[in-house]
């Protein structure tokens, strides 16, 4: 966050106050049009038929099984990408080696790949016509149109989140504290748990929050591999789509508002961890 303090005199010198007012007002207008309206419409549409209907759509069996599958996908993909993120950030930020910048670019690769392609590559590997299709059928293992496919697709799109938050943070922190711990006789793991982890815990939390939000809301990649089998391979976002396409708008927006509330909680957690990171960095500077 910025720490620039602006006194009124400075502003009046650089920009006339009417232009400042105009800019602030247009930012507010953009904020309302682009962010507040979509948020409000979800809640308005969900509550159109009353609160009872709203809750009914959420506790209906298909919605519950979709919620469970979404939680399962989050519970598997977030810890795996967390471990990956720490390992990747460790080797990239605490060590120097040839090809490092290429590796950093490659870690971000899933961000520039369309989620549909993320789903497609797994269909080509594990689908009936895919590379391992026949072998999987012989051994009676189903990946595509089943839960493992959904987990794989979610993993693919969320790979970079933890790593990309940790890398700049750990680069900024340097290696002095770790070196001191080692010279004082700490083992590798002691150094990691007692020096590194306390330093990066808020950055970790930040990455985990972003990763969770994306894993919970992923639609395209999961849609390709899901097969949309109600009650079995539907995640919450896919359930929203099905309800919406069946013109069951109230139910669709009710489930959507559940996802919206989860998203707002993620934003709050993100804001909180961000302020803790800043506080920690500022303390470290002094």
């Amino acid at each position, binding site marked *: 966050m910025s720490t*620039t303090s*602006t006194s009124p005199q400075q502003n009046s010198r*650089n920009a006339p106050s009417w232009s400042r007012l105009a*800019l*602030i007002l*247009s*930012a507010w207008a*953009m*904020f309302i049009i*682009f*962010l507040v*309206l*979509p948020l409000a419409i*979800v809640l308005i*549409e969900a509550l159109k038929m009353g609160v009872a209907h709203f809750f009914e759509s959420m506790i209906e069996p298909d919605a519950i099984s979709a919620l469970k599958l979404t939680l399962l996908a989050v519970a598997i993909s977030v810890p795996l990408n967390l471990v*990956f993120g720490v390992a990747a950030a460790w*080797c990239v930020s*605490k*060590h*120097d080696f040839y090809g490092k910048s290429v*590796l950093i670019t490659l870690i971000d690769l899933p961000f*520039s*790949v*369309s*989620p549909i*392609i993320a789903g*497609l*590559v797994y*269909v*080509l*590997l594990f*689908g009936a016509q895919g*590379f391992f299709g026949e072998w999987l059928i012989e051994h009676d293992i189903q990946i595509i149109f089943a839960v493992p496919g959904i987990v794989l697709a979610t*993993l*693919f799109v969320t790979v970079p989140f933890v790593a990309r938050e940790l890398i700049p943070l750990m680069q900024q922190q340097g*290696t002095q504290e*770790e*070196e001191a711990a*080692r*010279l004082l006789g700490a083992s*590798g793991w002691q150094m990691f748990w007692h020096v590194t982890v306390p330093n990066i815990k808020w950055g970790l939390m930040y990455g985990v929050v972003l990763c969770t*939000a994306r894993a919970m*809301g*992923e*639609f*395209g990649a999961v*849609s*390709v591999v899901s097969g949309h089998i109600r009650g079995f391979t539907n995640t919450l*976002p*896919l359930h*929203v*789509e099905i309800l*919406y396409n069946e013109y069951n708008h109230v139910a*669709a*927006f009710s489930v*959507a508002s559940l*996802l*919206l509330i989860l*998203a707002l909680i993620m*934003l709050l957690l993100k804001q909180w961890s961000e302020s803790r990171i800043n506080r920690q960095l500022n303390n470290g500077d002094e």
Partner: protein
Amino acid sequence: MSRRTSPVIPGFGLTLGYTLVYLSLLVFLPLAGMFIYASQLSWSEFYTIISAPRVLAALKLSFGTAFIAALLNGVIGTLFAWVLVRYRFPGRKVIDAMIDLPFALPTAVAGIALTALYAPNGFVGRFANDLGIAIAYTPFGITLALTFVTLPFVVRTIQPVLADIPRELEEAATCLGARPLQVFRYVLLPALLPAWLTGFALAFARGVGEYGSVIFIAGNMPGKTEILPLLIMVKLDQYDYVGATAIGVMMLVVSFVLLLLINILQRYVAKG
């Protein structure tokens, strides 16, 4: 691989190995698989698939709308970043926190919300309809959805850079007689441009591949409002794996070439 860091920091081999194995299994090998799958096709077969009118129309639509959305974000995002960094006003913290909503909100939720707003009978679409403007089910609606989902990119890349520009630079320029627009053109713009391009590239790449927020508002008419990712989905539903793969490969290659060009442009700009 040679390493130059102090040897007391352990875990280099372990973490590098783990990183490479994990990325390879999850990302590189599956992506390579797609290219191998596409290599079943001869060049002429590949060309026939990707030069079909329906595919070309989707290609133009996807890249065109993503480009315009990224440009729009370049303007709106700069406005947000400027106001959030430079001014103190009521609600600043709320706006700052909520800018990231499009990243946190599942894209399908964004899609149905925007459709409910901008459909001809929607809250905003109704008024536009009276004026004879159709928003939903047109390329305009697609652009709107893409602008929403990629909104945070430009704001978040420019914000830290803008905060770091010393105010003294602008004050010096003003003291030397520069007008506000000249200050912007000659002092702020050169400093902001590299970050602006990064934000633009991120928004553009995300916009080209975006699916969830678009399909509800797009109308999905083949040749008119059908985006490239949806076309891949359609081919997959028809069990046309080869067709889907060919389009996927083309899409990846075109995106990477464009990102590479933006990267080169950015280096050129950063050098001045």
